[in-house]
């Protein structure tokens, strides 16, 4: 559903490419976690897949068609996006905010139809924010606000979801709620691409993890193959140890420099 084929992106004036030769396929029903150090190209990859950045080589595809060839309205009906930041200026209510997910289905002057109200109702229910429908969005907590934004993306009735660090600055419970929600949505058939720094949650929720390093794919595969001590330590340039959690998912623990395990810190670049 969301693909990259030899995707290379160069920003003007930059010496090395922001993305180099990235291949990826996010299938319907699959949750792929996209992670990597700051500045490794995660956001660039997401922006390219959404048609906001022009590739230097290769291409980013949505449903087999070049992302930049899509009309924005059509694309909004295929892919729902929750961006990293969004600041609300005017005092909208939750229901109005989620209804904006329907704008790509409405004409410029067309009134809201029954299907639109049903879609909003369903989206609110699926994200467990139906009881907030009449609240003003500026009164929501961080976790509620993120769920409302996911609901708005769902109201678009997309086949794919892209979330850029949806749990940044959320507490444990709200973070878990978001991952549970996205997992449920992926299982119900959506293609989900989630940018996250939460390696341990990526490990437990994602079918596959894409680890980027300096614009290149450091590793791509199931968590057990990607989240190894060598690969994680090498990519993030920090000693870590990896153990299997109670549910069999690899769990990464960053080590302190004096830690006796840190002595075996692999040389940077190893494992790529």
């Amino acid at each position, binding site marked *: 559903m969301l693909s990259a084929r030899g995707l290379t992106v160069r920003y003007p004036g930059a010496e090395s490419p922001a993305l180099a030769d990235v291949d990826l396929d996010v299938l319907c029903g699959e949750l792929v976690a996209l992670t990597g150090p700051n500045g490794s190209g995660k956001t660039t990859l997401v922006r390219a897949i959404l048609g906001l950045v022009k590739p230097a080589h290769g291409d980013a595809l949505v449903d087999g068609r070049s992302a930049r060839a899509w009309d*924005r309205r059509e694309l909004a009906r295929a892919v729902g*996006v929750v961006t990293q930041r969004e600041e609300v200026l*005017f005092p909208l209510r939750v229901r109005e905010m989620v209804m904006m997910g329907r704008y790509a289905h409405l004409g410029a*002057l067309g009134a809201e139809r029954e299907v639109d109200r049903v879609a909003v109702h369903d989206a609110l229910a699926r994200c467990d924010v139906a009881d907030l429908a009449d609240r003003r969005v500026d009164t929501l907590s961080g976790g509620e606000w993120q769920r409302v934004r996911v609901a708005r993306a769902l109201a*678009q009735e997309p086949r794919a979801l892209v979330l850029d660090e949806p749990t940044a600055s959320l507490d444990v419970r709200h973070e878990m709620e978001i991952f549970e929600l996205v997992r449920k949505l992926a299982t119900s058939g959506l293609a989900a691409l989630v940018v996250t720094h939460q390696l341990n949650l990526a490990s437990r929720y994602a079918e596959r993890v894409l680890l980027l390093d300096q614009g290149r794919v450091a590793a791509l595969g199931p968590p057990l193959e990607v989240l190894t001590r060598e690969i994680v330590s090498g990519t993030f340039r920090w000693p870590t140890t990896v153990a299997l959690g109670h549910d069999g998912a690899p769990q990464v623990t960053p080590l302190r420099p004096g830690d006796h395990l840190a002595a075996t810190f692999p040389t940077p670049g190893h494992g790529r």
Partner: protein
Amino acid sequence: MMRLAGLAAFALIALTIGVGAGSVALPPGEVWSGLARADAPASLIVRNLRLPRALLAFLVGGGLGVCGAALQALVRNPLADPYLLGLSGGAGLGAVLAIAARPGSGWPVPLAAFVGAMAAVVLVYRLSVVSGRRLDPRVLLLAGVVVGAFASAVMSAVIVLSDAPQLRNAFLWLLGGFTASSWQTLGLFVVYSVIPFAMLFALARSLDLLALGEETALHLGTDVERAKRLVYVAASLLTAASVATSGIIGFVGLVVPHAVRRLWSPLHVALLPASFLAGGGFLVLADTLARTVIRPLELPVGVVTALVGVPLFAVLLRRNLA
């Protein structure tokens, strides 16, 4: 729907008061009979003098309300008003140049003001289109301020250097007023403003999304660059026309959209028509005050809108923050 009907009623009452008040005070009944029958006693005053003026004030006020609402969404700044695009400076410079260059005759002041305003708009637009074809609203704000300031500086210089006695009139004219209204001006304004009004109303949903930020608007299916350009063009055409017909009338375009947003809805499908009705009604009442308070003299209507609008706004702010 109820509230829109309520606002329409407010607009109608404002218009009735606007037509009724004056040196010959007419009760509402006479206003309506003067409208309905050509042989009614008040017919001449109503039809020839007061109605075109009240309607023009209504349309200009409505236009300023709609433009203010649209521009606040475009630049994502609730402090934006229709003159932020450097229009007022350009219009003032145009008017002053016309008077200073050919005292007495030559270019009609409104036309010169219109040309000045459009020149400023084009200049601001050119400055705001960065890196290829992107219109950057933040740069737009800065460019508007800079161009406006430059035009004002030139205008001041022209005023100091020129000794045209009519320059005081240019000042008065810039402060805003509907003294020169006629059916002809009204007709011109109606014909001219239909397209920008239609454009802005058709962009209502795009404005909702633009107000969320450009990236979010894109992901929700707006052609952001196209929408921004259309909003900019339509709002500046409409504002330039209102400056040309009635000078610079502050606060309507700032206060009215704010009030409507707080009291009713920030969604533009409701906000734009509501700002039109509220802005129109408000300016008709302001103009009525302007020409009756110190009769037979007239206050510039821009003075009244500020004197009335600022306290209203302050009350509104405090009530909603509490």
